[in-house]
């Protein structure tokens, strides 16, 4: 039997707020990090990802207090990303109650950082975060700094390299689909899944439960990260899970 697909809530953090944008831009405040994390946990979400979306811009990291607050009452895995640049940053995140860190910009700047991090703390806590921008059919470029900077790096080459260096999971965000509520970039997710053996988390574009179901049906994902459908109440966690279960998709209940 196929293991249940993990349903992850993604909370983009800016200062004291959870925000949501479109294509990682045009941000709107949707709530407080602690409150939303507790609500989604109580509703049965399987995991929570916090992204400090301005950390790599300003080089500051206010997110640890946010994680620490959540970790007091939320007993599912927590991942923190945004502004993770050094082993000290990772250790600080884990000490604040995070189970994993998501790394993008710092890994692209210096890929060996992934290897050092995996060797020091274990692959199980190192998530490679990829912001993928479609450039041609079957071709995506990796962006950094929350979609603000181009790199010229091919996403499909990069994920293979990151797995080799010791990443334990890959969070793939489609910048094209992000915030559009128009469905996942299933070609991107499928292509990444085909090239690596580690778990792949799909992010960007979930607007309806059917978007999630149709992606899961391709058999290419282990987890989906959703934001809008939870934040705006289009499909709260229990509604999403019961829809998936009714359609024959294994979920944790």
């Amino acid at each position: 039997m196929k293991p249940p697909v993990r349903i992850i809530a993604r909370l983009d953090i800016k200062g004291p707020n959870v925000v949501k944008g479109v294509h990682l831009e045009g941000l709107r405040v949707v709530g407080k990090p602690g409150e939303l994390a507790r609500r989604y946990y109580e509703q049965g979400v399987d995991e929570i990802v916090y992204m400090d979306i301005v950390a790599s811009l300003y080089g500051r990291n206010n997110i640890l207090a946010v994680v620490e607050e959540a970790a007091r009452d939320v007993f599912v895995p927590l991942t923190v990303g945004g502004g993770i640049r050094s082993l000290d940053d990772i250790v600080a995140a884990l000490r604040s109650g995070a189970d994993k860190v998501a790394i993008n910009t710092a890994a692209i700047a210096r890929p060996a950082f992934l290897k050092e991090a995996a060797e020091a703390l274990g692959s199980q806590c190192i998530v490679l975060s990829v912001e993928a921008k479609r450039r041609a059919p079957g071709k995506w470029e990796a962006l950094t700094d929350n979609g603000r900077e181009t790199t010229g790096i091919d996403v499909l080459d990069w994920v293979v390299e990151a797995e080799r260096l010791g990443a334990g999971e890959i969070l793939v965000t489609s910048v094209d689909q992000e915030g559009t509520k128009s469905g996942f970039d299933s070609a991107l997710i499928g292509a990444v899944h085909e090239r690596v053996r580690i778990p792949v988390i799909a992010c960007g574009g979930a607007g309806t439960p059917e978007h999630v179901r149709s992606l899961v049906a391709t058999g290419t994902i282990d987890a989906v990260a959703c934001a809008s459908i939870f934040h705006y109440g289009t499909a709260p966690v229990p509604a999403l899970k019961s829809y998936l279960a009714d359609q024959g998709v294994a979920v944790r209940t």
Partner: protein
Amino acid sequence: MITVIDYGRGNLFSTGQALRHLDVPYEITADADAAERAERIVLPGVGAFGDCMEGLRSRGLIEPLKRAAARGVPMLGICVGAQVMLDAGEEFGRHDGLGLIAGAVRRLPEGNGGPDAVRIPNVGWRALRTRGAFFDGTPDGAMVYFVHSYAPFVADGADVAATIAVNGADVPVAFRRGNVVGFQFHPEKSGPVGLNLIERFVRFTP
């Protein structure tokens, strides 16, 4: 009082928060004397087997933990903390464990690449097949959170308290022998099911 052993390799914050949430008094300590005096011990652990054993060795915790187990102190190992309770581990070469329960820590079976194959590391929520009294009250099929590539293959099948299905194999993920209990999964990250299991350990008398 629960003594949570800090040897630099554990998810101590979350383990502590779970105990706080359950209103259970606890201390987090790396002190070998505290381990000698402990009434009830939680041994967390994250990372590689050999590295965790080195963390225990460098803090002088190996012998105190062995003595605590021998005098019947209830001990709960979590994740790699459970793995090091066995005789040996095979991650990055063979390493001796604490030897509190017979068996070896071995890699999970790989899948065949088919659509139902479980990828290794095995990350996510998996349904427990429970057996034995320790899991009374945890429904068969209850899901808990895993992130691991290795599992504790205890030698005596009678000590296995729960298993999961991984690529066609029935893999042991919880064991209990007398006062020694181990969970390969993370009860502190497994929602109400996991909190309930921690509470069970807090109350259990071997």
